[in-house]
């Protein structure tokens, strides 16, 4: 699981799209697509450094403009209706997820495909590697799939001697740069047109035109060759209909059509919560997803996969495999956190999030999924305890809830996860501190003592010194002037005098009346 670098061409390299990759010098090793060390640096330090990265400010400005243009967080009456329906549909399966997964399995098998259930990333990787081995696969093409990011599939297949090419334009860009996606739907949202021009130029070993059409044509020409040459197509799944076994994939580039129809073998990878009750629900969920993700009424392509090639059909794979991955999700069922499983991966909460925008996208979250949804999903999946600090990387402003097409109460879920984090043994000191705070502020005298202490500190100690004392004041004072502590309790003193005057006036008026 360490072979994820964009090393030189191996003997017998077959990919056209990746030819020349050895010329690219990745410049952000901390954003690399491989597994993130469990003991990474603390988030405050990672995010502090992220603010100084060259692309952070332009990315912020681009995302903020997008947020304003799209009026993220507001919904037209038509989409608001879809939102209510979509929110209900997405919770329907959560009441009995296993039942729907069984139904889906039956339907998909009737369509002639093979279903594999995987509890862990390792199991999912092993299944896919076995399929690749058994079919002598040397080149795989992929359409966008966050589930495969979650299991770090590319690195694993590379280690098995399989070249893997990302065919979604944004995914192709981050693959070349050896970075993980910075956004669920727009993996390369943190890259400017110039960044992409430079990257493709390095790949080609020549100066390229920076016109968007030329850049797209450059990628298309190279990718087309790989669609033809690949033995294996790997796709994600946006929705899997339990009643018909249909796997729905939503794209704007049509690459999923190619991935699912050209290679001999197609492996679709989904996580458990992607199942939906009925094919007809796509009529609600697809337009809802498109509105939330890209403000389109509907995406350019909707790929509906109903099994492998049948007799008499001119294209389609000989084999279709569906891998259904859990990775900790079903543990959330029956708890308040299960709502995170309603997510349809539109990425709207990320665009809406001022913290995500400010740190330049998803990378500083140091998880496969960044932004608000990442902060609630990441602690749930993978090893226990991993990413448990992520829920603190939020100002709880609530923009994500307004932006969510299926109404996941992300701020409430973040607060729940914070409580989980603080109940762990490692948070003993914090617990003791808050306990003391609670005991003091549970009495009027304790609170007044706090006010008096603050006032005394404000009067005796210069701000320079106060700013250096351990505690929250130090964080505050980094970049901000301290509030005037010497005025602590001033309002109460003023009110006492005011109230006396008021009472005296009332008494006088009473006598006169």
């Amino acid at each position, binding site marked *: 699981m360490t072979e994820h670098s964009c090393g030189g061409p191996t003997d017998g390299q077959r990919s056209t799209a990746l030819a020349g990759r050895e010329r690219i010098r990745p410049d952000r090793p901390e954003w690399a697509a491989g597994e993130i060390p469990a003991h990474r640096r603390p988030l*405050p330090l990672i*995010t*502090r450094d992220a*603010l100084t990265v060259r692309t952070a400010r332009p990315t*912020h400005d681009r995302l*903020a403009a997008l947020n304003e243009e799209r009026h993220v967080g507001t919904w037209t009456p038509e989409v608001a209706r879809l939102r209510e329906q979509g929110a209900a549909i997405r919770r329907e399966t959560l009441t009995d997820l296993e039942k729907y997964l069984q139904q889906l399995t039956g339907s998909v098998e009737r369509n002639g495909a093979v279903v594999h259930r995987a509890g862990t990333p390792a199991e999912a990787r092993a299944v896919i590697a076995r399929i690749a081995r058994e079919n002598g696969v040397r080149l795989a093409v992929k359409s966008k799939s966050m589930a495969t990011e979650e299991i770090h599939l590319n690195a694993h297949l590379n280690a098995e001697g399989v070249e893997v090419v990302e065919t979604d334009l944004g995914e192709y860009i981050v693959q070349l740069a050896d970075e993980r996606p910075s956004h669920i739907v727009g993996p390369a949202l943190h890259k400017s047109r110039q960044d992409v021009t430079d990257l493709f130029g390095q790949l080609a070993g020549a100066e390229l035109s920076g016109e968007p059409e030329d850049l797209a044509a450059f990628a298309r020409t190279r990718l087309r060759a790989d669609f033809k040459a690949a033995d294996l197509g790997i796709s994600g799944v946006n929705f899997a209909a339990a009643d018909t076994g249909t796997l729905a994939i939503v794209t704007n580039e049509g690459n999923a059509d190619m991935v699912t129809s050209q290679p001999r073998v197609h492996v679709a990878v989904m996580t458990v919560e992607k199942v939906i009750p009925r094919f007809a629900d796509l009529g609600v969920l697809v337009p809802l997803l498109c509105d939330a993700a890209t403000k389109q009424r509907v995406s350019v392509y909707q790929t509906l996969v109903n099994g492998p090639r049948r007799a008499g059909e001119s294209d389609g794979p000989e084999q279709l495999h569906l891998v259904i991955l859990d990775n900790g999700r079903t543990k959330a069922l029956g708890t308040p956190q299960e709502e995170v499983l309603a997510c349809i991966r539109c990425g709207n909460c990320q665009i809406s999030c*001022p*913290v995500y925008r*400010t*740190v330049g996208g998803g990378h500083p979250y140091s998880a496969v999924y960044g932004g608000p949804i990442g902060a609630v999903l990441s602690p749930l999946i993978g090893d226990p305890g991993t990413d448990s600090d992520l829920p*603190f*990387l*939020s*100002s*709880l402003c*609530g*923009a994500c*809830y*307004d932006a969510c097409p299926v109404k996941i109460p992300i701020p*409430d879920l973040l*607060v729940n996860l*914070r*409580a*989980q*984090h*603080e*109940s762990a043994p490692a*948070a003993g000191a*914090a617990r003791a501190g*808050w*306990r003391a705070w*609670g005991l003091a*502020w*549970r009495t*009027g005298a*304790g*609170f007044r003592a706090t*006010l008096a202490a*603050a006032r005394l500190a404000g009067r005796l100690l210069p701000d320079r010194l106060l700013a250096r004392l351990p505690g*929250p004041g*130090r*964080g*505050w004072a*980094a*970049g*901000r*002037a301290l*509030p*005037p*502590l010497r*005025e*602590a*309790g*001033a*309002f*109460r003193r*003023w*009110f006492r005098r005011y*109230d006396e005057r*008021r009472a005296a006036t009332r008494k006088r008026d009473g006598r006169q009346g």
Partner: protein
Amino acid sequence: MTEADAGARPRPARVALFTSCMGDLAAGGPARATVEVLAAMGVAVELPRAQTCCGQPALNSGHPAEAGALLDRWLRIFAPYDAVVTPAGSCAAYLHHHLGRLRAPTPEQRALVEHTYEFSQFVMAYGTELRLRLSGSVTYHDSCHLARTLGERRTPRQLLGRIEGLTVREMAGCDTCCGFGGTFAAKFPDVSVAMADTKLRSAAAEGTDWLVSADPGCLLHLSGRARKAGPPVRTRHLAELVRDALVPSEVPA
């Protein structure tokens, strides 16, 4: 509802001020202004001395037990009143949103929180006869919990709109979080401050006399940043602006 209708609503008899811990510790100005504006409305607001904090900092830091204990206490202390007014938009929103999440409230407790108002809500509901005049210009920063949890984007702006002579200019991203976020400001100071700079730049671009908001937390954070190193923007709490705009009623001699 027309203003006349609102004015006709019976005014609550006993009104308490919920200062908020921040008001007691470091933002007394908005609390005092609230008392003065309410006095001009003929409301003799009371100040329960035993009050401390609603518990929001504890809950948002992951300590629901401490938060629940403080919430119980808050409910006891304010129970005797017909209405509670606070200059802290976030605390009002917190009480409304989390009462049912932290506790199974009695009908009386539910009613108490339903009658807990953020400053501009109370003034717009019961202060229609106030005459307000102040020349100058402001831009309004929507504090997150007032705008999103309580859904109050219009009411504070309507109140600003009632001040004769005042120009209100909307800044870009007026409802984007300023980066305060309670303990977030101390846990992630660099991100928090970068968010303040974005907000202050937007406000500075409007060139108004004041950035006005209805939350002391946002204002402490923004003014602290502006004073230390940020764009030169002056901040003012909505209650202070309204207090400064009070026109003494012409009492016949």
